[in-house]
């Protein structure tokens, strides 16, 4: 009988929230729409075969370098490996390339100046003198396409990094050969040039960037940008749902239904447990719908189903704890609404719902761990990269612990306030 009443209270709350159109809009429609929107921005729905979500990035290359490195860079950008990711156009007019960037016709332009190769690889004709002249590749990024431009920039930096590594290696090699008397100064230029040729082959033969990850089992797993966006949105709006649940306790207290329940032969423990379970099950239902929906509509692979379920339940549990804390400490529906919304956005930011927080300072990442979003994101990303129930045990444990601590705090405070006492 005791358990039955708990589930009757919970079921009533679930029915009420699923009949509230505005709540449903924010619980289900908003995360879907934002996921679609952000997916569209990143090119996820452009129809390309790549599952990275970013594809066919328009790029203009102007190569005025007559040497091997310039050609190697162009070849790499046009290589088969980067065929799905980049859509390069080779031009000869730098001014025209800039105009294309300015007019938003391309994501970025790369200008390889004359003597780029010569500035790095000493030729037998030019000798060491040319090495003193610094020639830099110019990169024009389109500010309206930060993601695409960032990807091109990263590819370029990787190429230059390989070139730099090769140049330093060559210098060290030649210096050591000279110092140990294996070659004489007349032979140094020829040896350096030879090393440079090999460097060109190694830096330009394969692309440096591939959006491919390797699972623990060793098999390759392609990463989908939606696998980042969708859990971010789902976790952020999960906080809305639990805030709404907490709000229902305050509302019931005000509208007299809480008192009416407590006047009936129902204990305060049954009522509160029912409300907590109602919020928890609503949160679980929301996540299940969002995960199921994105899987069916966008073909998103969330990862190992068992691990996804474990993480989903743990995230819903921790978020419900936050919902109860909000209900316990705040007194009016207005307070719950405004502070709940603020918390949803703060946790969304801290948890990485809007951008990757891995590049943020360490203290921000530490603070972010108070949010279920951060732990949830960590777990969902791990699963999207091919993780298993074992690899997400830390986030799952952290979320369950967070929920348990928050429930204790909420129960203590609700008892102290006499919110569910009659």
């Amino acid at each position, binding site marked *: *009988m005791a358990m*039955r*009443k708990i589930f*009757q209270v919970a079921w*009533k709350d679930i*029915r*009420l929230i699923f*009949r*509230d159109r505005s709540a449903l809009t924010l619980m289900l429609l908003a995360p879907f729409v934002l996921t679609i929107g952000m997916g569209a921005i990143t090119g996820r729905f452009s129809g390309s075969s790549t599952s990275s979500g970013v594809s066919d990035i328009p790029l203009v290359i102007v190569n005025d370098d007559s040497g091997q490195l310039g050609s190697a860079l162009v070849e790499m950008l046009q290589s088969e490996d980067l065929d799905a990711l980049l859509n390069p156009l080779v031009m000869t007019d730098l001014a025209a390339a800039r105009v294309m960037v300015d007019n938003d016709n391309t994501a970025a332009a790369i200008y390889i100046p004359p003597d780029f190769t010569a500035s790095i690889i000493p030729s037998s004709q030019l000798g060491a003198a040319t090495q003193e002249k610094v020639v830099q590749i110019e990169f024009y990024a389109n500010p309206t396409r930060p993601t695409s431009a960032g990807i091109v920039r990263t590819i370029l930096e990787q190429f230059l990094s390989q070139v730099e590594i090769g140049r330093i290696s060559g210098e060290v090699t030649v210096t050591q050969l000279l110092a140990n008397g294996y070659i004489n100064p007349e032979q140094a230029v020829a040896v350096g040039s030879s090393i440079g040729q090999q460097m060109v082959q190694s830096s330009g033969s394969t692309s440096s960037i591939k959006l491919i990850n390797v699972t623990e089992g060793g098999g390759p797993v392609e990463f989908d940008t939606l696998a980042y966006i969708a859990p971010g949105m789902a976790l952020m709006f999960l906080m809305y749902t639990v805030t709404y649940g907490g709000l229902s306790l305050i509302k019931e207290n005000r*509208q*007299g*239904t809480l*008192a*009416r*329940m407590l*006047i*009936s*032969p*129902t204990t305060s423990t049954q009522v509160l447990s029912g409300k907590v379970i109602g919020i928890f099950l609503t949160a679980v239902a929301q996540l299940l719908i969002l995960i199921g929906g994105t899987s069916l509509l966008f073909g998103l692979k969330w990862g190992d189903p068992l691990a996804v379920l474990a993480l989903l339940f743990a995230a819903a549990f921790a978020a419900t704890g936050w919902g109860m804390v909000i209900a316990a400490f705040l007194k009016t529906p207005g307070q719950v609404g405004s502070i709940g919304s603020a918390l949803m956005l703060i946790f969304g930011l801290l948890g990485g719902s809007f951008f990757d927080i891995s590049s943020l300072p360490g203290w921000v990442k530490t603070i972010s761990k108070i949010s279920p979003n951060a732990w949830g994101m960590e777990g969902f990303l791990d699963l999207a990269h091919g993780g298993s129930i074992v690899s997400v045990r830390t986030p799952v444990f952290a979320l369950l612990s967070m929920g348990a601590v928050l429930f204790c705090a909420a129960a203590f405070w609700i008892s102290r306030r006499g919110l569910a006492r009659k």
Partner: protein
Amino acid sequence: MAVKKCIGIVPQELALYEDLTAQENLSFWGQMYGLSGRELTTRTDEVLEQIGLKDKAKQRIKTYSGGMKRRVNIGVGLLHRPRLLFMDEPTVGIDPQSRRAILDSVKELNRQGMTVLYTTHYMEEAQELSHRVGIIDHGELIALGTQSELTHQVQETDTLILHFSEYEDPQPLINALQGITGVQRVVSTNHEISIVTPSAEKLIAPVVSQADRLGIKIYSIDIREPNLEAVFLHLTGRALRD
């Protein structure tokens, strides 16, 4: 818990879920009182019939009129067949038709054997419904008994009520009334003077004459024989609306 099962509550404020239908509300509250299965279904149907909302049972409460909501509010209190029903001003803010329906159903419940503790500010409701009446003034029970026991306290007094137009100042008449034989107590409210007297009929002539002398026009005159309102007036020295 055993006591809770025996009592039903009808709070003054509506304590219902507006996004649930009447049937769902009754079903939920029935479950809170331990009803389940066939008994729950049967009682829900019976109560819906009783409060006259069977045909609108599947509509959400928020689409109901105030009177219909009040009836559901009462229905919740009846579901588990309580032996004692507390009703706190169940007719506040509703139309006369719904009010009549509620008063009739209270009488019917009592006829069926249920004890009803009914709180109201309307003396005519108390008079119509009650076997025993308690009068509470400023949180204190100042009288308790059957209607006849209470009215017996003021049985030798009538209440003569004088009505004035809103432009009339009856204060000179109030002062003058203190000197008229037979006037026991004078209470004035907005454009109205209530005079407690052993015989209202005998007092009419001197009061009208005094008003005439003072140039105060009386709009109308009522005589009330001893009733609960008179009892309240007698006990507190104030009309109920004060």
